[in-house]
């Protein structure tokens, strides 16, 4: 069936800010789909509140609205832009829910807008728990015994009829928010209550627990003619019970025979056919490990994290094909972009094995529980490809960048066999390392399988790796042994450690014996047809399909690895734009990255894609073949920066700012010299290695001080210390991981925090704009509300900032991007830190100023000057509107995480509010972040003594807004004394009703709680904050944020002005 001629203007809904369970994969899917729609001559109107995305670029869509994703806003955009259709299946659960609401309210019908990709009925059938269950029953597909309940009593009654344990899944939530397994009535009540609250429709599914079964997923495509294919199946190594987003996953399935494989495939096709989905769909199964019994767990009638993984694992572009199908094409009319010969109506076949490992944020939230459940916790993931499972696992482990490179990276040697068996009962992110140690201590496969339910086949593979470790440790390193270790993807440094040799010796021995990585192609068809797309992965042994090309100059672009807090999608935005800019300048581009969720790892972004770990050794193997003319590291975050020195040793010229200048910005002494030379002030400080030294420096400077490791992103390990005791605590945390570089201790200055991104050509600089943070210094810049143009600083300070930026950039010989953070105290400006590379704010500032700074930086790196590029050097004129970047957190997903803001970054994503006035922009930013107030007009305030004065002023404003204020004893006293009416509530330890009861009573809009220092989890404040977050109550821990929220509410408006960012 050819394209539907009635589809000319399509509105695409994005997924909004990055949160756990909804990450970069939707930028990848949305970007691919928009390009695919534009290819067909369709006008694309894009709506997404997330400015860090590539999909919100003006070259991706025709009209771009970076506006809050609410029904009202979408209705306004539809009225303004008059699309003929809307495509809601690319924006994750958020997009799908919005599409549904628009359809259900009749708005789409009354405005002549068609829902593409799925019908409301098919979404309801797939997403509504009861509807889905009924449908499965009708077509004879089994589901675990279950019941949808709307109150706790019904849940208890049903569970009593099927027996514990039961799994609880709230309807219409992301990443399994609020779900869990209940083993007894106490757990049931707790989880159920929470889940009912989080569900959009107040429904929770209570179902028979099938934990321990094999978890298998199929990615399915269907077109309007009813043609169906499966793109790929995947097997979770962690059996049912761990959210698939937190599981180690292998593709294709490894332990299913053709009978099981086809049985589930046929079922998946039957389901998608019955749901009449037009596009991509994900079906999850639980398969009994010792029978043919299976259950359909769930269906996602849209592109998903799994479909992004399946696309990268197979080379089949699911989002692109989904978009074409939505336009009316059938699968047999769509060309397979990889082979260029065959069609989309085929099933990819793999001749390799793919392993995905989630990137969990426990290094950020050290107080959080590491346990993995049906509630997703991972912020990102890595994928690796190899022709054997062991190798794929080893590569994935070292791609994580969590100081792990083999199965010994977490040390469990202190535990004996019995203790290890006990430890295996804990399901967490360290489980494979525990299994490895258990195998070392002689625990049998059967015992491990019995406890973990992980299939024997995977246990045996881990055993093969353990045996290789032992062989390397105990046997002489022969060429044969080395060859086998490399086949299993043991990195040289691990072999060196195990054999007691030097890494250089191992490398030399490899080179002497021709043991080098070769590259194979991902071609969708196991070499049956010639492929034209150079998408490579490495293996040891065999023919190398990657050939050195010489016709053009070549540049290596290093990606930023897995999405983690502090290094998110922004860096993928920068890498992709740099790649495009190099390409435009006539370069052949080569990307190395290992993140399956990103645009950069789409096979048609760079000329060549290497899906590989970003370690020195893995990069060197590629460099040996490609011999690039240069590498660019300033766009890939800290991951790429860390490789600078290694690349230089390999003889690869670093394009842009030189490595020694990067060092000068990070190295305390060198940087102090530069500041002295340029005459720029900074907070006094010193470098230390030990807690003793730190205390000495701190006492010399006077508390409070800022303690942080150098060479980190996202303020990892950064803390404000008030006492010697805290210094000791923080230093111990930082030094848990061996530090290559000294730790910095600085005097903590309180003032306005200012941030700039600039392009420097060596002489001139270009500053697109100055951003001011709403929160004072002390809150990490990534967690602060950032406003452009800076609203409260005067011309003198702005000029000073522009001048300091120029002086620093030129003194550091920056060629390309530089990011600087300043403190402004009255008219004094101090520098906090300088990052001679791209930053988190680059996409935001580029979009809101219309100045494409990554492209400009790339041109500058290639030798152009700012003047030649047509820009007047210096600070650019300010825009006539305000653009506010609002951080978004995923605290509710991570049990036990401390939510109070500080110098260490905690947010997972961001959204934008853009408007003519500051107030409207602020309102939009809060709205985009999901703060949709007022609801009940009740709030709780509990602040530390030092904050009471400010709290009174804020409380007064909320009182005026009609809020009833509750406060704990001393805060209430202070408020009442100042004439703000506050009702006193008891502390948690006092008798009921306490502040906790109030929060659990569900009628609270907001909690303002400024924490006292320290990480003591037992404190009242911590409990209050956690309870608020877990029950879906907005919780603010910085008074500046609270003040901004008051301003936003005072200026709330129903009718928002809309700005097409593409026209800026």
């Amino acid at each position, binding site marked *: 069936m050819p394209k539907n001629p009635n589809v000319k203007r399509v509105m695409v809904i994005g997924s909004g800010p990055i949160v756990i369970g909804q990450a970069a994969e939707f930028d990848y899917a949305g970007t691919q789909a928009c390009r695919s729609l534009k290819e067909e001559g369709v006008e694309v109107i894009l709506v997404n509140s997330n400015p860090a995305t590539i999909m919100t670029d003006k070259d991706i869509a025709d009209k771009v609205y970076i506006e809050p994703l609410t029904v009202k806003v979408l209705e306004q955009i539809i009225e303004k832009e008059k699309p003929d259709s809307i495509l809601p299946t690319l924006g994750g659960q958020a997009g799908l829910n919005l599409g549904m609401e628009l359809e259900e309210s009749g708005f789409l019908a009354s405005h002549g807008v068609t829902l593409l990709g799925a019908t409301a009925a098919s979404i309801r059938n797939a997403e509504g728990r009861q509807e889905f269950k009924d449908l499965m029953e009708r077509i004879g597909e089994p589901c675990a015994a279950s019941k949808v309940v709307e109150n706790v009593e019904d849940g208890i009654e049903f569970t009593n009829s099927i027996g514990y344990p039961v799994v609880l899944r709230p309807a219409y939530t992301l990443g399994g928010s609020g779900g869990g397994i209940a083993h007894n009535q106490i757990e049931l009540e707790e989880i159920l209550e929470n889940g009912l609250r989080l569900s959009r429709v107040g429904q929770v599914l209570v179902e028979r627990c099938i934990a321990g079964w094999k978890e298998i997923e199929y990615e399915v495509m269907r077109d309007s003619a009813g043609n169906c294919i499966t793109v790929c199946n995947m097997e979770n190594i962690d059996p049912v019970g761990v959210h698939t987003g937190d599981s180690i996953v292998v593709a294709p399935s490894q332990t299913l025979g053709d009978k099981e494989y*086809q*049985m589930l495939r046929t079922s998946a096709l039957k389901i998608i056919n019955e749901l009449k989905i037009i596009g991509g769909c994900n079906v999850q199964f639980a398969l009994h490990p010792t029978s043919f019994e*299976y259950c359909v767990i769930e269906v996602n009638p849209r592109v998903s994290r799994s479909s992004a993984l399946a696309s990268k694992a197979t080379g089949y572009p699911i989002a692109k094909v989904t978009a074409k199908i939505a336009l009316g094409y059938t699968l047999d009319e769509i060309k397979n972009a990889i082979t260029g010969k065959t069609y989309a109506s085929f099933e990819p076949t793999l001749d390799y094995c793919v392993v995905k490992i989630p990137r969990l944020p426990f290094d950020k939230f050290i107080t959080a529980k590491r346990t993995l459940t049906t509630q997703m916790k991972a912020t990102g993931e890595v994928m690796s490809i190899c022709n054997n499972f062991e190798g794929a696992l080893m590569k994935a482990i070292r791609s994580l960048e969590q100081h792990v490179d083999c199965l010994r990276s977490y040390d469990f040697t202190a535990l004996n066999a019995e203790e290890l068996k006990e430890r295996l009962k804990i399901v967490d992110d360290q489980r494979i390392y525990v299994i490895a140690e258990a195998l070392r201590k002689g625990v049998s496969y059967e015992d491990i399988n019995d406890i973990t339910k992980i299939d024997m086949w995977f246990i045996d593979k881990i055993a093969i790796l353990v045996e290789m470790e032992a062989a390397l440790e105990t046997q002489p390193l022969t060429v044969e042994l080395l060859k086998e270790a490399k086949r299993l993807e043991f990195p040289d440094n691990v072999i060196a450690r195990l054999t007691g040799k030097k890494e250089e010796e191992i490398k030399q021995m490899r080179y002497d014996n021709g043991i080098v990585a070769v590259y194979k192609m991902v071609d969708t068809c196991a070499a049956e047809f010639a492929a034209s797309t150079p998408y490579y992965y490495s293996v040891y042994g065999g023919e190398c399909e990657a050939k050195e090309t010489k016709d053009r100059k070549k540049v290596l672009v290093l990606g930023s690895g897995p999405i983690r807090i502090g290094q998110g999608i922004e860096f993928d935005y920068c890498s992709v734009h740099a790649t495009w800019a190099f390409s435009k300048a006539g370069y052949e581009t080569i990307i190395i990255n290992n993140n399956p969720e990103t645009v950069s790892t789409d096979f048609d972004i760079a000329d060549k894609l290497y899906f590989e770990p970003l370690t020195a050794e893995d990069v060197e193997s590629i460099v040996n073949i490609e011999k690039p003319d240069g590498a660019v590291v300033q766009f890939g975050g800290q991951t790429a920066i860390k490789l600078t020195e290694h690349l230089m040793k390999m003889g690869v010229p670093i394009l842009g700012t030189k490595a020694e200048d990067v060092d000068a910005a990070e190295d305390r002494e060198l940087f102090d010299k530069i500041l002295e030379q340029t005459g720029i002030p900074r907070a006094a400080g010193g470098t230390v290695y030990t807690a003793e030294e730190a205390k000495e420096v701190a006492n010399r400077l006077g508390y409070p001080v800022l303690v942080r490791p150098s060479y980190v992103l996202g303020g990892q390990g950064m803390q404000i210390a008030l006492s010697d005791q805290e210094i000791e605590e923080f230093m111990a945390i930082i030094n848990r991981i061996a530090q290559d570089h000294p730790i910095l201790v600085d005097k903590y200055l309180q003032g306005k925090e200012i941030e700039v991104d600039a392009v420097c050509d060596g002489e001139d600089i270009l500053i697109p704009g100055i951003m001011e943070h709403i929160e004072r210094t002390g809150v990490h810049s990534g967690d602060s509300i950032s406003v452009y143009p800076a609203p409260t600083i005067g011309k003198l300070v702005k000029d000073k900032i522009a001048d300091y930026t120029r002086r620093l950039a030129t003194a550091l010989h920056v060629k390309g991007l530089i990011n600087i953070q300043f403190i402004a105290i009255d008219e004094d400006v101090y520098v906090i830190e300088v990052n001679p590379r791209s930053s988190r704010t680059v996409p935001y500032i580029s979009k809101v100023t219309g100045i494409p700074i990554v492209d400009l930086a790339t041109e500058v790196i290639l030798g152009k000057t700012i003047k030649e590029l047509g820009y007047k050097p210096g600070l650019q004129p300010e825009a006539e509107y305000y653009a506010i970047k609002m951080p978004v957190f995923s605290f509710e997903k991570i049990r036990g995480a401390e939510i109070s803001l500080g110098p260490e970054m905690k947010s997972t994503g961001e959204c934008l509010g853009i408007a003519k006035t500051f107030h409207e922009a602020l309102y939009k930013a809060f709205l985009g972040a999901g703060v949709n107030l007022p609801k009940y007009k009740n709030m709780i305030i509990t602040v530390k003594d030092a904050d009471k004065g400010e709290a009174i002023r804020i409380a007064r404003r909320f009182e005026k807004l009609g809020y009833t204020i509750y406060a704990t004893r001393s805060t209430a006293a202070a408020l009442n004394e100042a004439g703000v009416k506050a009702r006193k509530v008891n502390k948690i330890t006092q008798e009921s009703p306490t502040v906790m009861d109030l929060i659990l009573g569900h009628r609270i809009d907001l909690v303002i709680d400024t924490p006292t220092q320290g990480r003591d989890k037992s404190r009242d404040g911590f409990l209050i904050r956690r309870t608020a977050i877990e029950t879906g109550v907005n919780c603010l821990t910085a008074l500046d944020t609270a003040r901004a929220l008051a301003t936003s509410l005072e200026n709330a408006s129903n009718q928002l002005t809309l700005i097409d960012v593409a026209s800026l």
Partner: protein
Amino acid sequence: MKAFLVLEDGTVFEGTHIGADKEVISEIVFNTSMAGYLEVLTDPSYAGQAVCMTYPLIGNYGICKEDMESLKPWPDGFIVRELSRIPSNFRCDMTIQQFLEENNVPGIAGIDTRALTKILREKGTMNGMITTNEKVDLDEVIPKLKKYTTGKVVEKVSCEEKYTVAARTLEENGPLSGSASFDKEAYARGEREKKPSLVQESNGAGLKVALMDFGAKKNIADSLAARGCEVTVYPALTPAEEIIADCPDGIMLSNGPGDPKECTSIIEEIKKLYATEIPIFAICLGHQLMALANGADTYKMKYGHRGGNHPVKDLATGRVYISSQNHGYVVDTDNLDPAVAVPAFVNVNDGTNEGLSYTGKNIFTVQFHPEACPGPQDSGYLFDRFINMMKGEK
């Protein structure tokens, strides 16, 4: 022990010896299925060939004997990247290593199967030798390799005597796919539940089907029996008269190995079957033989279709199905007389013929494998179409 794969173009792959300890010369082909290695090994159509699996990890779930598509493995040799050290599946009876050894199939592991596949793709299917002889003299071996032909293999793989596969009731088919439930006690007694069935209706009850065995996969007869048909299996060289005399309601021509044009006497018998009014359904080799019997031509493809991901389009409906395939020869439809037959299915990838519908006759034939095993079950509906045809005749 080291092993070598020598191709007729002189390429030598060095790997590790697996399976039986013997040297073989055979035609080297590749299969792209990711699961179903046992079904591949026991598919009689591979007689006279050595199969290379493009998926690198083979043997993961061991050997589940009830999944065998015939009584023994047929390939002359087996070529893999890696054999799993342990098998893991609740139905597993033995390891693939044991199976190859016990059934006298030699093989080679640890070679770059992707490189081999690319050679076969670029240069076309060719002959090769699997040997453990480290001192192979290429000058001596290559002429031998070039001379090798698969020959008349159908007679080798066909049954020797006619036999009957009894019709089954729905209960006898075992649990319907999706309705299986784990019985702890039965499992403890060592009972392993039957494979799940997709057949929901005994629509073929009372029908008698004659199946010509040219190397039939077990699931062809099973697919019919599960629908209630009684299937009588005839040796390949059975005279048409004998089949006709048994008065079947329909005739199935099975899949099988080798060059269809070598089956000259069988083609003569098929001509006689064609002349009757008995509905006929043919698969793979059977499809090619019916075409040859009606004056069409067949030719050898460069490297054939072997795998479980080939899209075929039903020209009557425009629907595309993913099919299981195993063939090196194909019917040439260029000179097909539309008065005799018209294309019914076409391969979406390369446009080759995948099925014919015989004009004015109750005969339809397909190149792919609706019986699956291994591979997608999407085209199983063709058995129902055949049953409806038989019912219409009755």
